């Protein structure tokens, strides 16, 4: 595997190898090199099986990290090719001509992350989310809690308590009253001044 990694690094501007296990190594290459690199790995290095394609939303860095996981039956090991693409108008070269099965993953990434793969067959057809509106649900800026609150109706009879409030009621109700009253006093003075000014 080491030779292959060295090749990827020299031929496709690959970065440092991230060795997770003896038989599982990840290398990051520029997005523009991904198709060439995967073609090389499939035809020259024996990594004929596409295990999967996945994405991670690194919203802090403003990128999606794509991972193409390949397997070699001869060498009994896996290489993951990673590439960062911009989050805005995210788009990536399709690899359905290398592996026809890739179109399914690409369709899924289109649906869940909004990453486009121009030319990939049926890429705009939904797999799960028929009639979905709004941003794709696997993006980090998708507010899952808000969505579930709006979408699913609440069950009747459920009630909850805030731990801090509950403790105040149970253990120091009178002191809590003093605290609120003093706090209002201190804050109220300031507010009055502010309004006057």
């Amino acid at each position, binding site marked *: 595997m080491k030779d292959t990694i060295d090749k990827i690094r020299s031929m496709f501007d690959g970065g440092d190898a991230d060795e997770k296990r003896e038989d599982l190594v990840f290398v990051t290459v520029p997005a523009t090199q991904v198709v060439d690199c995967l073609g090389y790995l499939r035809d020259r290095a024996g990594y004929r099986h596409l295990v999967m394609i996945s994405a991670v939303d690194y919203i802090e860095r403003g990128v999606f990290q794509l991972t193409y996981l390949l397997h070699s039956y001869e060498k009994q090991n896996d290489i993951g090719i990673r590439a960062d693409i911009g989050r805005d108008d995210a788009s990536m070269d399709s690899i359905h001509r290398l592996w026809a099965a890739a179109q399914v993953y690409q369709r899924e990434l289109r649906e869940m992350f909004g990453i486009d793969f121009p030319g990939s067959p049926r890429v705009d057809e939904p797999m799960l989310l028929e009639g979905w509106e709004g941003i794709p649900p696997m993006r980090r800026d998708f507010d*899952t*809690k808000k969505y*579930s*609150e709006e979408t*699913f109706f*609440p*069950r009747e009879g*459920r*009630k*909850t*308590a*805030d*731990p*801090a409030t*509950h*403790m*105040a009621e*149970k*253990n*120091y109700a*009178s*002191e*809590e009253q*003093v*605290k609120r*009253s*003093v*706090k209002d*006093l*201190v*804050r109220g*003075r*300031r507010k*009055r*001044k*502010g309004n*006057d000014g």
Partner: protein
Amino acid sequence: MKLRDIISPFYAWKRAFEKPFTIMRPRTDREGAPAYRGFHINDLGKCVGCGTCEAICQNAAIDMVELPGQETKRGDSGLRPSIDYGRCCWCALCVDVCPTASLGMSNEYNWISDDGEDWVFVPGGDQKPWDMSEKGYRTTDESWLIEPVRASMRFVEPDVRKKNFDEMMLGYTTEAALEEAARCIECGLCIEACPTHMDVPQYIKAIRDGELEEGLRILYDTNPFSESCGRVCTAHCETACPVGAQGRPLAIRWLKRYITDNTLDIRDSILETEDIPATGKKVAIIGAGPAGLTAGFYLAHYGHEVRVFEQQDKPGGMLLSGIPEYRLPDEVLAREIKVIEDAGVEIKTGVRVGKDISARQILDDYDAVFVSVGAQIGTDMPVEGSDLPAVHIGLDFLDRISKGERPDIGKKTIVVGGGNTAMDVARSALRLGSEVEVVYRRSRKEMPANAEEVEEAMEEGVEFNFLTTPEKMTEQGGRLHLTCRRMRLGEPDSSGRRRPEAIEGSEFTIEADTCVMAIGQKVEDEVAREAGIKLDKWGNFEADQERMTTSIDGVFAGGDCETGPDDAVGAIGTGKKAAWSINEYLSGR
């Protein structure tokens, strides 16, 4: 039609007598994978009801509910998570965020009930077959969303700091404060633990949001001594912090200090107390310690005229005289007290009630009186030789040092006691250039001093002689000879600590130049006697726990003189309560 088309349907019959591929009834269920995320399990003994699971649940599937048998106590809200399986998506975020690691998931996924209400239950509370399951999903170090390690504080190395009285903790940098603030899970269990119930999660959030001015306002809502507390508070909140269950609790004290350290320039401007309408009522406060000054600060906000009488030349009480400068520099305390004075509190120092002005006089001249004289008298041990000149009382010793004296205590000092005062004395004596040995009659585990104090003392080279008590002190050839006896721990006493018992024939002698007794404090009863205020059987002022009222109408008491020797934040809590109660009294309620 071909013959084959007619015969081929019968071809299937050739398997008629083989073992079928279908599964026989009764069906055997397949067990979930070992790390399967099935129904939740919760160790109710470990769970502290912090509600972080509820907060993180993206489907609002979790409620915090009361459960019979779960008590609301220090560090435990008594609530427990109830899960609505109509909403749970089995993502396990609740497991990964649980600070106590009480919440897990079994690998059970087969369960049938026709009643929809059965699908809402409290794991661990409503018994289920999978409660004892060892298998299923548990969080790992890698997947745990809690950061168990504290952001580090800058401090002076022990070898350097033990040579002077300069402050040893240097405060958080902004980077470290943000890192530490990010560890907070905002459960609020700390609020109950704080005697003055500071809004800890709120001011930590203010740090995260970079809103230090709002942070400072939150501090002043409940505590006018936040800068001092940020350095020397006993931090009951940190004991209650659930993050401490599996890691180090939030450094709440240091975060509070970060706010005050970085808002010095706006401190004067956030409290706008100039235009408070005066009520015309006059309140006298006896003793300018944390209790008295806190009461004064809030009473001034109500618009009452407040005058504080202090027998010492400087205000501050135990914060000034009882806590050495390497923990709390004088200028920190001074600028906090200045804010209190700016709020309209008049402090008259060098006035001893009972000598310079009579208690009677004060009672006559003022509409209400708050007594907060503290527990200023250090107690000594009734052992032979405790009146020798080389034997000192801990509080007096600390008081002299706080006034700038640097007494010559010789090469070797013995400190008797295991409380925070003993640690302060020991570390002060070290800074005066003496070797120090602490003698304590119980073991390290029973020491009332904060663990941090003991650790720091040990780092600086203070020696400890546990399970030892002095029996006799004599002076021989200019040196002090302490005859000590070894102790062993017997049955627990009323305080829950194991009672020390002397071991016969275990006497031995330690030689030293100085001995300091730091074994207790009691209340000066002069004011009480003169004004006729009732004391309890321990000699403390007797006061109502809700209103802080004493046996005399219009006289209130709080702080150490009412609770007995306690910490600063306890005094601040009662001071605040007293201010409210005095205002109620003056308003005729």
